[in-house]
């Protein structure tokens, strides 16, 4: 078991119980998706996994080793978050943003190698190396964010809504990139509103409702589940067609 989470409870203040007794696991090499409505606690979960929020109870372990809820320790343990809405350093260049992703690493040669890997994943970034990240288009910014996340050489990459605000063509590109990142051996934990794509790409998926996991199983099975379809896929004919494919 690469990443495992047990009985996680997170509160905002005293009133809001955002995550309730959450437990789940991610195996090496998997793509695991988490879907759920707005406010279900998906981003809260991501923030908790990297130590930005402190759980009241519960443990997060990487290969059996417990991780203290401190962001740089989480990164050092091999967890890296590509946050919702990207959160780049807008006044730094693309190269500087990428290099900061490798902040904890000291192996300069390999950092350069990893940079090249990112360029082969997103060739457009190589052309934009000296440009300020804040002046890139939304799609390019998302590529930088994913690149920055990869630069710490994570064992598991957390992606929080990577398709948010992207044109359909770019959504396609981003998911293609996610697949190839997974294929090259990095485990992926994906949170998405685009439930169709998220379930389509996932080996396994969890459904989150009001801070609880209510359902879990292989991505394709959840796509076929009538309850999931009613709640997250809508009744659009597009979903039907995707299922027929």
């Amino acid at each position, binding site marked *: 078991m690469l990443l495992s989470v047990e009985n996680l409870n997170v509160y*905002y203040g005293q009133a809001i119980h955002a995550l309730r007794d959450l437990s789940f696991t991610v195996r090496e090499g998997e793509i695991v998706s988490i*879907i*759920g*409505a*707005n*406010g279900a606690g998906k981003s809260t979960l991501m923030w908790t996994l990297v130590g930005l929020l402190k759980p009241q109870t519960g443990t997060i372990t990487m290969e059996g080793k417990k991780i203290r809820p401190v962001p740089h320790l989480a990164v050092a343990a091999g967890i890296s978050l590509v946050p*919702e*809405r990207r959160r780049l350093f807008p006044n730094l260049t693309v190269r500087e943003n990428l290099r900061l992703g490798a902040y904890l690493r000291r192996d300069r040669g390999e950092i350069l190698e990893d940079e090249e890997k990112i360029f082969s994943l997103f060739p457009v970034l190589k052309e934009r190396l000296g440009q300020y990240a804040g002046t*890139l*288009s*939304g*799609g*390019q910014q998302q590529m930088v964010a994913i690149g920055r996340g990869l630069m710490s050489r994570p064992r598991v990459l957390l992606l929080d*809504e990577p398709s*948010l*605000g*992207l*044109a*359909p*063509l*770019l*959504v*396609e590109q981003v998911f293609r990139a996610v697949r190839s990142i997974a294929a090259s051996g990095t485990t992926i934990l994906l949170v998405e*509103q*685009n*439930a*169709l794509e998220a379930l389509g790409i996932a080996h396994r998926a969890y459904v989150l409702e009001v801070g609880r996991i209510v359902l879990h199983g292989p991505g394709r099975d959840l796509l076929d589940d009538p309850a999931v379809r*009613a*709640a*997250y*896929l*809508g*009744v*659009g*004919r*597009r*979903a039907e*067609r995707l299922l027929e494919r």
Partner: protein
Amino acid sequence: MAYAEAIFLNSAIYIIAAMGLAVFTGYTGLFSLGHAAFMAVGAYAASILTYFYRWPFLPALAVGVVLSALASFVIGYPTLRARLRSDYFAIATLGFGEAVKVILENFDLTQGARGLPGIQKLTGPGNTTLLLVLSIWLCRNFLRSSYGRRVIAIGQDHIAAEMIGIPLLPNQLLSLGISAGFSGLAGGLLAHYTTFIQPSIFSMDLSSLITAGVVCGGMGSLTGPFVAVTLFVVIPELFRGLALWRLVFYGMLLVVIINWRPRGLFGYEELSVRNLPKLFVIMGITLGLTMATVVYKALVRANAYEAAALLAALGAMGAIALLVSLLGRGVSRLLEPVVPRVRGAWQEAFARFVRLLDPLLGTMGRKRRPRAVVPGEDGDGAVGGEDTLLRILGLRKSFGGVVAVDGLDLEVERGEILGLIGPNGSGKTTVFNLMSGVYPVDGGEILLAGKNIAGLSPPDIVTAGVARTFQNIRLFGSMTALENVTTALRGGADYSLAEAFLRWPWTVWKDEARLREETLMLLDLVGLADQADRTAGTLPYGLQRKLEIARALALRPRLLLLDEPAAGMNPREAEDLVDLIRRVHDGGRVSIILIEHHMDVVMSLCKRIAVLNFGRKIAQGSPYEIQSDPGVLRAYLGEKVNVAVR
């Protein structure tokens, strides 16, 4: 006794100044380092009137208040009109403060650097208490009024504020004027308490003390500055007995406060039963410090070791602070059920009293101005007699060398929902920003019902009938959902500024009730009625988007610009949003331009879609035509997408 009175008067005077400043700095976020200058204006004006002209005290103070407020326009108008940002504005006020000092030093009437000695001692506990209570009441009334809400909105997000039709300059000047007025009042009181003033008293140190009170107390609170300033005045006095340890303790305390409450003692909150314990903790620490000094002094006098005395003092302090804090928790729990009932009873009694006076005062209100015409409802079809609501001709905009919008032509029929799609960076949001006046237009025309709105100020564009939402959600985060929408209501409140200050029941109450009702209807429309009193910033993302739509609708637009309303929603939620937009569209009473990447949403709402790429329109037509256009597929949709038209 005289000692206690001195502490009280000192605190009260600085509290008045700090609460006044809170109305400006606390809510608009603009820092002032020159408010001592306004205290000086008030002090000199009042003193000269009582000293040379033998005026009675209160009228002299009133003149000081008015002159201070007027003086604030001298610095406020040029700086705020130039939109100086926070830090530059602070420097400008700093310069202003020094300039006023120099003027006073070289002016005959003020007797130059010698100052005015022998002012009558007219400030006493009685009139100071009265003025303090009055100041609190006035500040609170202002902030709860529609005028105050506008100021708060500007402080929260000035772009969003402009986009709902709030002009920045007059509202910022108003709050600056109010803060200067209260500083003037404090200055007048100070002069007639110390009986001697000279220009050097009104130094930057004094300005920073007041500003520090606002910051440590909490930006966005009146209670905060009140408590913080009291501490500033009281605590150094308490430490007097600690001799050399005094400054160490004072410094430690400030560090503790800032660590414990990085957003100030009270943040955005006012005093309530719920945060009563917080006040008790502060009181406990203060009391503890008092005891600590007493214990320390006694032990030193009894020839104890210094270290032992210090330890005992610290122990005493901790014990008392803990006791009082626990007491606060108890009191809060005890009062929790009682307070709402008492408040309800009081409000009912007061309402009855108001009704009793109704025949006498109810008719006294000014003549109501006619309500603004609601564009969505007026028969504007007459203009030009055409079906085109919006016609954009040759619109151009470039940033540096990058052409963002390149000769765009676009039309929106009356009652239509037009879809605007295109790759990221194709200029869609820039078009919205040009239409709503965020950026000046480089060229071209934007004709709304035949009238060119290109180049108008954002509030004028709102008046013309265009409202928008934002891709990155721009709500007034610390206001409630209700207040967010109320602030935007077209026409706004119907009462005058004077009535707002007095919270005049016959106008303010009635009008606020009406605004609340209108707001609740809008919240109900977007399905947020049950969240009305929740702080907007704590709402989940999807609900924030809906709240933004409600806020835009409050402006009664005839053209609504929605910028990616379905971003961050799953397909199911996006379907709900489609229903919501249909309700908002209301059979064509409101025309809509919709920027959206969720193709399901676009295809099911829009009969006509325009596609942008590199700032140009590359295609336009029905959903079917768009989906079969090879250029669109290549630039935007990709191969695999084709969406059923419902």
